[in-house]
């Protein structure tokens, strides 16, 4: 093998509670190096480190055998590296051709910088014929869909002279035929001798176009394999790592009556025919890749998004047309983004916590603040977070804030809790508190829908696990009858390979 194009040696980085630990990874010319890992495993941080967007705390990066020194002209200021991010960064009102050749525009007059549009369009036509892209030269970017925009980004990488190309989850939004085009572009990039780092959740991608694959878990590389010498099974095994489902506090709780029944729920073409039942005292885990529709499902159940299909609460048909209705039916949603979607920044902690329960503290539309304050203080003492003297709830740490959000819904006496990534990014002690809150809720007959990317957590605290893939639930199994590896396999494989059908 030739010498490496790019080499990272003993890279360490600590960002608040997350750590990249002692990473060694390399990239050879003409190689596609796949990077896989669950959400939050450190993939994006690794890409940022490779691309120079952030500097490591320690460790060295070599480009073509030379050490890259910070603050010196280097790989990062040249055209040798191109980073295509998950979300396209195109100029909306320019044509596709203009976007593509923005840095290499052909001029009619070198001094006046008048653009030779005829030549530009010719260049572009040659290019799209070569790659067989479903795009017209004078389409403005604004009129294009997400997949087409991605195509343009890939083409950018193709026409650039970059030796190191980074593609962050490029196939996420693509259909099968669009993926074929992506693979073709990637092969062209390889042929001209560039190396590609490629992150993905799709194991087919890795098997089809990868040369080597590295798996990252909790900020550490758990293995690097040559694709030809490995199997899907081995990759899935590396992805899931050693299982620690035993560390989660899980009570033995008798399930009660069916609390929530979802029948044929659909939304546009993004969710189809979702069916499941949630009983009193039950914790249902829902997992799936990012963007698979987990959050969309949560929004449908909370009346944020208008769904089709039928929802029943205690076997009575209901129409959840707004969040207000959802709250009245006893449904609580804790969105994935705690700070943006769960709190009012302008209000104090007390007011935030009391918000959905104001009717408990008011008579004739007048709020009795003494009651309110006393009750909130009881909760704050119980859930063990500091009492804030300051005005804003944002003074809380991530963990305390999330606990306050739990207090809010517990105080409102909700019955059905939809928790979207409730423990992501918070400290361990708060996580343990939250697992215990959930147990407390379940033993008092609440029903919990637990959405998480952390398979160990799902296996450890849920009674059942459902996987969303290809816009629908592809399995719904008791956690004690399945394994983390099986669930991960269902997420990353095409569902057509699995024998599972929805049992309801």
């Amino acid at each position, binding site marked *: 093998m030739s010498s490496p194009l790019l080499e990272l040696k003993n890279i360490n980085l600590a960002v608040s509670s997350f750590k990249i630990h002692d990473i060694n990874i390399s990239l050879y010319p003409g190689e596609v190096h796949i990077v896989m890992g669950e959400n939050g495993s450190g993939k994006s941080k690794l890409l940022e480190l490779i691309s120079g967007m952030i500097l490591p705390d320690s460790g060295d990066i070599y480009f073509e055998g030379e050490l890259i020194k910070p603050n010196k002209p280097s790989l990062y200021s040249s055209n040798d590296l191109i980073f295509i991010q998950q979300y396209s960064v195109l100029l909306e009102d320019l044509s596709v051709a203009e976007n593509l050749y923005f840095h290499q525009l052909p001029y009619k007059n070198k001094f006046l910088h008048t653009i030779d549009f005829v030549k530009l369009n010719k260049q572009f036509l040659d290019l799209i014929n070569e790659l067989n892209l479903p795009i017209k030269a004078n389409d403005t970017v604004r009129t294009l869909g997400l997949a087409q925009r991605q195509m343009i980004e890939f083409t950018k990488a193709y026409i650039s002279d970059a030796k190191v190309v980074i593609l962050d989850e490029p196939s996420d939004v693509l259909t099968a035929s669009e993926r074929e085009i992506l693979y073709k572009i990637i092969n062209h990039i390889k042929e001209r001798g560039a190396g590609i780092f490629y992150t993905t959740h799709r194991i087919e991608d890795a098997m089809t176009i990868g040369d080597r694959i590295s798996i990252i878990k909790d900020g550490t590389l758990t293995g690097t394999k040559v694709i030809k010498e490995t199997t899907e099974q081995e990759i899935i095994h590396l992805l899931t790592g050693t299982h*620690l489902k*035993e*560390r*989660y*506090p*899980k*009570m*033995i*709780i008798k399930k009660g009556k069916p609390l929530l029944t979802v029948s044929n729920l659909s939304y546009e073409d993004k969710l189809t025919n979702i069916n499941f039942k949630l009983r009193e005292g039950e914790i249902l885990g829902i997992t799936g890749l990012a963007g698979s529709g987990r959050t969309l499902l949560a929004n449908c159940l909370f009346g944020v998004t208008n769904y089709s299909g039928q929802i029943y609460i205690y076997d009575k048909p209901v129409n959840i047309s707004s969040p207000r209705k959802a709250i009245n039916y006893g449904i609580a949603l804790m969105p994935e983004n705690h700070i943006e979607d769960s709190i009012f920044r302008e209000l104090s902690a007390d007011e935030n916590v009391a918000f959905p329960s104001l009717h*408990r*503290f008011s*008579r004739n539309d007048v709020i*009795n603040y*003494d*009651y309110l304050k*006393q*009750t909130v203080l*009881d*909760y704050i003492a*119980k*859930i*063990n977070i500091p009492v804030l003297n300051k005005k804003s709830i944002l003074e809380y740490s991530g963990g305390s804030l999330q606990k306050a959000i739990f*207090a809010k819904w*517990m*105080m409102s*006496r909700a*019955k059905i809790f939809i928790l979207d990534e409730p423990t992501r990014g918070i*400290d*361990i*002690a708060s*996580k*343990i*508190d939250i697992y*215990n*809150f959930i*147990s*407390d*809720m379940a*033993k*008092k*007959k*609440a029903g919990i829908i637990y959405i998480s990317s952390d398979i160990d957590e799902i296996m450890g605290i849920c009674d059942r696990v459902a996987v969303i893939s290809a816009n629908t639930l592809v399995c719904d199994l008791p956690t004690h009858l399945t394994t983390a590896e099986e669930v991960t396999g269902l997420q990353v494989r095409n569902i057509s390979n699995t024998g599972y059908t929805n049992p309801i």
Partner: protein
Amino acid sequence: MFAIERIRIIKNILIKDHKVSVAKLSEMLDVTEVTIRRDLEKLEKENFLKRTHGGAVLQNYDEDTLWDINEDTKDIQLYQEIADTAVYLVTDGDAIMLTSGYVNTYIAKALTSRTNLTVVTNDLLIASAFAHSTSNTMILLGGDLDESAVYGQMTIDNLNNFSFNHVFIEIDGLSETVGMTVSSTKKATLIQQAVKLADSVTVVCPSKSFGNKSLYRVGNLNIAHRILTDSELEDKYKNYMFSHNIPLFTSIDVYEN
């Protein structure tokens, strides 16, 4: 709705301060003294408090308590939380061993709500807490009586006749450095033997005993399949248990339904 809130608040104040005055409550809750008196009367009927001149004091609300309570009311509340959690760690029909201890006595009482349990203990208070339960079986071990529990070779020989689904061991100290400790050697020996006879080991320890060390070692933390404590546990122990893969039950009682 309103009265419920008011009563909850009064209860909380009583648990915290052990006494309340009518005037203070009336001012704070913005209702007349008559209303407060009525609330207090209601709570007195529930045996929660005892009315006094101008106010009320907390009743030892656990009336069938079997010993003189020197314990703080707050502690009792925490023990109760632990006991309520323990109920959800066993399955009807289980064979269970409860080693001697205060908290395990509360657990025994709470477990009477289950059915078909067979409970074995060396503690007289635990046995009598369970004695009235007709839906479960209680077996009391024999041996040398010390205070309210039996120990010694006879007890161990007795114990060896059993095998358990579940053992709840109550310990006096738990620390990262020396593991689990108790206050007497005979207690340590008994617990060590009970652990050998059970499929599943739950270590029962109030939060205030974390970080404590008693003289006699029971063993390392890794013999615990789970640790059961109350909601006042310090965060650093939560981190420790999680990083050592031991499930930690903090028995928090916060959700109202």
